[in-house]
């Protein structure tokens, strides 16, 4: 009798629990709180704390007055811009040609395949190739490494965007008097801008924040912003490390803001 009552209560409790759609979001919300929101708050707090735990602006001051830190930031941005431009210049024709081929999607798969290999292994392999060819490691090899690592992130969104452009736009351009080159410049290229923007975002942001790649491919002579932050934290300089992380975040947000504005009025941007 008692056992029955007990089970009855248990069952009614389970019955009252309503599996609404909201319930499915709880694990994700908890995860985000623990691993995204909390670390950000810790970063923010750390940025205003001195070594004794008191409130201070010194961390900001020391970063913005330190020539070396600013030079690293400048270098990171420069490498980011050069890498992004190279990825776009190399990736666009590849994506364009692939979207015109019927077997294009198989080749796209071949382009993504290396992404399934860990980037450290890929970078070590690249370093071995440079060594065996007697190439002096430096800023040049860093950029080659960055392009090699991030070009799939440029080709993928471009390929998706270009292959989704309705062919009737190109036909309309030809109909209105464009030869093949003009058709590309006046219809295909402007219509692929959403793909260019998402490709640029997806290459530029990881490039400026990348670490390890630059160290490995330059024998630690070229230091990127990501490496610099890494260095701060490993030397327990949490204050300046946090400031630099926030500055990085600010760059990402600013870039995203401009990209979204440039993309306004276009078709909704797809992830790739």
């Amino acid at each position, binding site marked *: 009798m008692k056992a029955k009552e007990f089970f009855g209560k248990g069952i009614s409790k389970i019955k009252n629990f309503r599996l609404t759609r909201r319930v499915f979001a709880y694990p994700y919300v908890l995860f985000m709180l623990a691993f995204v929101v909390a670390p950000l708050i810790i970063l923010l707090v750390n940025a205003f704390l001195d070594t004794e735990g008191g409130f201070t602006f010194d961390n900001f001051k020391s970063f913005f007055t330190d020539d070396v830190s600013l030079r690293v930031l400048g270098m990171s941005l420069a490498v980011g811009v050069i890498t992004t431009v190279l990825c776009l210049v190399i990736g666009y024709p590849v994506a364009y040609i692939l979207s015109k081929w019927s077997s294009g999607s198989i080749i796209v798969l071949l382009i993504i395949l290396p992404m399934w290999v860990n980037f450290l292994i890929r970078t070590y392999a690249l370093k071995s190739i440079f060594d065996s060819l007697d190439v002096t490691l430096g800023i040049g090899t860093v950029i080659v490494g960055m392009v090699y690592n991030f070009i799939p992130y440029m080709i993928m969104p471009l390929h998706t965007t270009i292959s989704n452009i309705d062919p009737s736009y190109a*036909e309309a351009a*030809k*109909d*209105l*008097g464009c030869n093949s080159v*003009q058709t590309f410049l006046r219809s295909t290229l402007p219509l692929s801008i959403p793909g260019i923007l998402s490709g640029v975002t997806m290459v530029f942001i990881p490039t400026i924040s990348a670490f390890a790649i630059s160290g490995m491919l330059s024998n630690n002579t070229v230091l990127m912003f990501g490496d610099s932050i890494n260095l701060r934290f490993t030397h327990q300089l949490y204050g300046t490390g946090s400031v630099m992380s926030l500055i990085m975040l600010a760059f990402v947000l600013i870039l995203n803001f401009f990209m979204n504005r440039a993309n306004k009025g276009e*078709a909704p941007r797809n992830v790739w």
Partner: protein
Amino acid sequence: MGDHPEQFLEDKAVAKKTKKKNIIIELKNVSKIYDGKPAVDNVSMSIKRGEFVTFLGPSGCGKTTTLRMIAGFEKPTSGTVLFNGEDITNMPPHLRPVNTVFQKYALFPHLNVFNNIAFGLKMKKVPSGETFTDKSGATYEKLRKLTKKEITDKVNAALKMVDLEDYGHRNVSSLSGGQQQRVAIARALVNEPEVLLLDEPLGALDLKMRKDMQIELMNMHKKIGITFIYVTHDQEEALTMSDTIVVMRNGSIQQIASPQKVYDEPANAFVADFIGESNIFSGIMREDRKVEFFGRVIECVDVGFKRDEPIDVIIRPEDIYVLAKDNPASLMSATVTDCVFKGDHYQIIVLVDGENELIIHDNAEVKEGEEIGLFIKPFDLHIMHKSRIINEIETEMWDTGVVEICGGRFPCNSHLEGGTPVKVSIDFDDVEILDDEDDGIIGGEVVSSIYKGSYYQCIVRADNHYDFFVDTDDDWLKGDRVGIRVAPEKIIVEKLGNAESAE
């Protein structure tokens, strides 16, 4: 000549002055084959300057492909396209003096309304009045781009023409379907093409808007006076707007005629069935002016048929008159099975002799089950040659007692040896259609089905493109895969080549 754009434009300007021919576009034996299947099959036609021509037909009939070959987006597999008497078959689209209004408008989403319309003008080059002489001594007139002012004026005039004066700065995606349609028309017409091509331009609009746009397009055509080539599957649209209708089916032309003629004198049963409603049934031409159908000999106006030739009889529903049962003028009596009010008429369905169905449009209501008399004026009976009276295939014997037809092996009652070339004949009602393709000896696709009063006449296309005509009691769905079977005793096999060997 085609490889030098400026020179081409130059020559064309000369051509325009010297010989302004009445025929602007001519297709000569044009075919387009995709993957071995003909989409357009040996089409020839001439289009007159200033005409409003409509390509009409069901989807997949080759009308859009034909239009795209005129626009230059597709190259014909064979045949030539002439423009003002010049061969433009291989000329790229941007050099052709035609402009297209696309089915889904294809307005550039990255440009506003003004820049969409200005697109073609920015590409355009006009003679500047200056001349230069090249190395070989030939003199050309120099070409220049249009100035900003000229472009603005032209675009504004075009916007005014389509009643969108204040919409220049608007984003195309913010416009309604009808407005986008107008922008697409303005974008094409602003280039002053000699021919405007329209590919089902009203397909995406609702009924009311479509009717309004039909009238606007007709007015524009009248005002501008250039040639319009219009593609549609909507027979009413074609009848309303066109000077000439080209009815197409399965890649070939069925009839080229004025709307009145296409409606009143359809060239064959397909045209009659596709344009408007029709009653179509088989009959026999007994002699001049005497046709037999439904077991009755009835007076008509047609002459020149063979005695006892099997023919198709076509009667429009509004050409049948309902009389009292005992009216002496009545040609036949019938039983009403259905009477539905359709707004401006009653649609009456009657059975003659209990088996032949007729559709009648009349202004008076009749009661279901009522016996009535029918009258048809002799000149409202349209008599047509049958496109085929028996399925005939030239093939060879597979083995004694087995004949090969369209890749399948059919048992038959012939004693000819394997490999003998033969002609096989099968009557329409001896071909069996089977639901499951695998139950048939060969498979095929139903390409049409026309009701003939008491049975359906289907065309089933075998995989080697031979069309079987089949009379069946069932209405088979167009596009369905079916199996084909023929009873051995119904296959008539004749040895081929006897005539040659006898000589």
